C-alpha cells in the first residue's frame, strides 16, 4: 500500500455570542470582582446563574451577590494541563460551592499537588489581572483558610454591562484523505488525472471519493482521463477574491475531461473571457511545482457537439 497522505488541518472558529440578562450581569460582575447568583422561586441560589430554572424552566431574574469564598464539592488532579486550560502548571479541576450558593461552579484550583486537595476544602477566587467580562476573569481558585467573605449585597446593576462574548476556539487535526483521494492526489503530482470507475454502472468519477453514490459500491478501477476536456458550463467572475492574484473578469467553468463521467471545475485562461462558450475544447496548464493545474486553456480543436456532453453534470 502506498504511503498514507497526511496534512495538518487547523480549524478556528471565533464565535461571537450574545448574552441574556442574567449571563450579562454575571460576567460583568466578574469584571468588577463581584460574583452574582440567581435565586429560584423555591429559594435556591444558582451559581453560575442561568436564565431559566433548570427544574421548572421558569424565567429567573432575581440576582443576588455571593461570596468569592467557597467549598470544593469534588475535584480531579490534572497533572498535564492542556493548551487552553486555565493554568499551565499542574492543577486541580474543582466544582466549588461558593458561600451563599446552593450549586457549584466549575473552575481550576491552583494547589501544590493532589495530596493538598480534598473534597470539603475551603477555597477563594483568585481574580485575573485583566478582566473583560468572561469566566476567565476568575484566573482560578486558591486554598483559603479564613472565614467566609461577606458579600456586599450588589444589586446586579452595572454601568457598561457586557452584552456578548467572543469565544475563540482552535482545533488542530491531521487530515488524511483516504484511499481513493490519495491515489488521485498522487497521480496529480505526475500531472496525470486519474478517476475511478464504478463496477456496477461504469461511470468514471473524477475526482474519485471511493464510492459510487448511485450504486453505493466501492469504486476501485483506476482510469486515467483527459488531459483534454470540454467546457460543459461556465460563469464569469467579476469579484476579486481575497488572497487570489487573478485579474477579473475571468471565467470559471465545469470541464468534463475526456473519459470522465462528470465534470470538475477550473479557471479558463488564454482566451478573452467573453469568448468562452459551452463545448469549448480545453487542456490543463501546469506551473512548475504545482500539485494541480493552474488553469485550462483552449486546445484549438473544433467545439464539441452538444450531444457529447449534455449528460455530464
Amino acid at each position, binding site marked *: *500500500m502506498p504511503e*498514507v497522505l*497526511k496534512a495538518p488541518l487547523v*480549524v478556528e472558529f471565533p464565535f461571537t*455570542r450574545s*448574552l441574556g440578562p442574567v*449571563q450579562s450581569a454575571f*460576567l460583568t460582575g466578574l469584571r468588577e470582582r463581584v460574583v452574582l447568583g440567581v435565586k429560584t422561586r423555591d429559594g435556591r441560589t*444558582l*451559581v*453560575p446563574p*442561568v436564565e431559566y430554572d*433548570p*427544574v421548572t424552566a421558569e424565567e429567573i431574574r432575581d440576582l443576588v451577590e455571593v461570596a468569592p469564598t467557597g467549598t470544593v*464539592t*469534588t*475535584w*480531579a*488532579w*490534572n*497533572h498535564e494541563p*492542556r*493548551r*487552553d*486550560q486555565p493554568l499551565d502548571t499542574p492543577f486541580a*479541576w474543582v*466544582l466549588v460551592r461558593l458561600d451563599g450558593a446552593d*450549586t*457549584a*461552579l*466549575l*473552575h*481550576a484550583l491552583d494547589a501544590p499537588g493532589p495530596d493538598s486537595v480534598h*473534597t470539603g476544602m475551603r477555597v477563594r477566587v483568585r481574580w485575573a489581572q485583566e478582566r473583560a467580562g*468572561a*469566566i*476567565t476573569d476568575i484566573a482560578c481558585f486558591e486554598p483559603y483558610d479564613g472565614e467566609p467573605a461577606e458579600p456586599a449585597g450588589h444589586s446586579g446593576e452595572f454601568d457598561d454591562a457586557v452584552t456578548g*462574548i467572543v*469565544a475563540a*476556539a482552535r*482545533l488542530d*487535526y*491531521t*487530515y*488524511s*484523505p*483516504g*484511499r*481513493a*483521494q490519495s491515489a488521485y492526489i498522487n497521480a496529480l503530482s505526475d500531472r496525470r488525472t486519474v478517476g475511478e470507475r464504478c463496477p456496477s454502472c461504469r461511470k468514471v468519477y473524477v475526482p474519485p*471519493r*471511493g*464510492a*459510487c*453514490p*448511485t*450504486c*453505493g*459500491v*466501492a469504486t476501485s478501477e483506476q482510469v486515467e482521463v483527459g488531459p483534454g476536456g470540454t467546457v460543459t458550463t461556465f460563469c464569469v467572475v467579476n469579484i476579486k477574491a481575497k488572497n487570489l492574484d487573478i485579474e477579473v473578469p475571468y471565467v470559471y467553468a465545469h470541464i468534463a475531461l475526456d473519459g470522465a463521467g462528470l465534470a470538475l471545475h477550473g479557471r479558463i485562461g488564454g482566451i478573452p473571457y467573453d469568448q468562452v462558450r459551452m463545448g469549448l475544447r480545453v487542456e490543463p496548464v501546469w506551473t512548475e511545482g504545482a500539485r494541480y493545474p493552474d488553469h485550462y486553456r483552449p486546445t484549438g480543436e473544433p467545439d464539441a457537439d452538444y450531444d457529447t456532453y449534455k449528460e455530464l453534470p
Partner: protein
Amino acid sequence: MTRHAPATARDIAVVAFAQTDHRRTSDDLSEVEMLMPVLHEVLDLTGLRTADIGFTCSGSSDYLAGRAFSFTLALDGVGAWPPISESHVEMDGAWALYEAWTKLLTGDADTALVYAYGKSSPGPLRDVLTRQLDPYYVAPLWPDSVALAALQAQALIDAGDTDESALAAIAARSRSDATANPHAQLRGPVPQGAPLVRPLRTGDCPPIGDGAAAVILAAGERARELCARPAWIRGVDHRIEAHSLGVRDLTDSPSARLAAERAGAFERPVDTAELHAPFTSQEVVLRKALRLDDAVRVNPSGGALAANPVMAAGLVRIGEAAARIHRGDSDRALAHATSGPCLQQNLVAVLEGDPR
C-alpha cells in the same frame, strides 16, 4: 413523550447488526471507505438491497475529524441517488435509531437502515469534546472529557459508591469479556496504568479510535422474514440532565432511570444490559440508576471500555444487545447510550426475543 410503543402500534425489531473492527486509526480510509463495508455487511445479512430500504438515518459529528459535511460524503456509501428518504442526527447513532423507530411506528416505512461512524483519530478528541459544553461558562476553560469524568469519579468515591480497586475490576472485567469480541480495540489484560486525570487511570478510560456500525430495523412480519429471531424493540426513551454540571448530583443519573422507566425496563427483569459507560465510574452510576443487580450480564461485548468509536458506540450497544437475542443468548436485554459530559443524556432501549 415516550416511548413505550402504544398497544395498537406495530412491532418493530432490530433484524441485523454489523460493525467495523475498531482501530486506533483508520488514516488509510476516508469516512465512506470505512463505513461502506459495514453497510454492505448489514444489508447482506438480510438479503436487502439499498432500494428495498424505506428509511435511512445516520448519526455522526463533523467536529471529530474536522471535516465539514462529512455525513453527506458518507451518504455516497448508501447509494443515495436517485434521492432516498433519509435523515441525519448530529448525535450518536442510537438517536438515529430512535428517529428511525418512530418513523416505522408511523407506518411510513417498513424497513430502516441506521448507521453511525466516527473518526476520532484525526483530532485531539479530549479537546474536541469540550466544544459541546456550555459556551459561556464552561467551554472557555477547556475542561476535557477525561477531567469531567474524573470529577464524577471522585464524587462517587467521596460518596462511598466505589473505590479505585472496584473501578479497576470493572476495567479488567470489560477487557476480559472483550477477548470474545473480534471487533474490540482493547482486549485481554490491560494495565490500569498511571493516573490520567486523578482519580481516573488510563485503564479507567476508553480507547480512542475509529469505527462504524449499522443496524437494520423492520416492522411486523417483514422482521420475521428477514431474521430467524428478531430483537423486538419494546420501548425506547431518552432523557437529559440539567446543563450545568454544578446543579447535578454526579453520583446518580435520574435521566437514565426515567428513560428506563418510560422504555418499560422495570416491568420485568432483563438478563443482559449493554451500557454505554465510556469510563469505569460511569458503569457504577448506571448500575445504580438502572437497578441492575448481579444477575444481569453487563456488557458481555466488553462495552465502551473495549471500543468507543465516538458517535457509533451507543448504536453498537443496541446492536450488541440485539445480536445476543438473535443468537439466543438473551431473551430480554436493555441497551443504553449516552452523550455529553458525565452521562448528561441517556437513551434506553428494551429488546426482547420471541419466547422459545
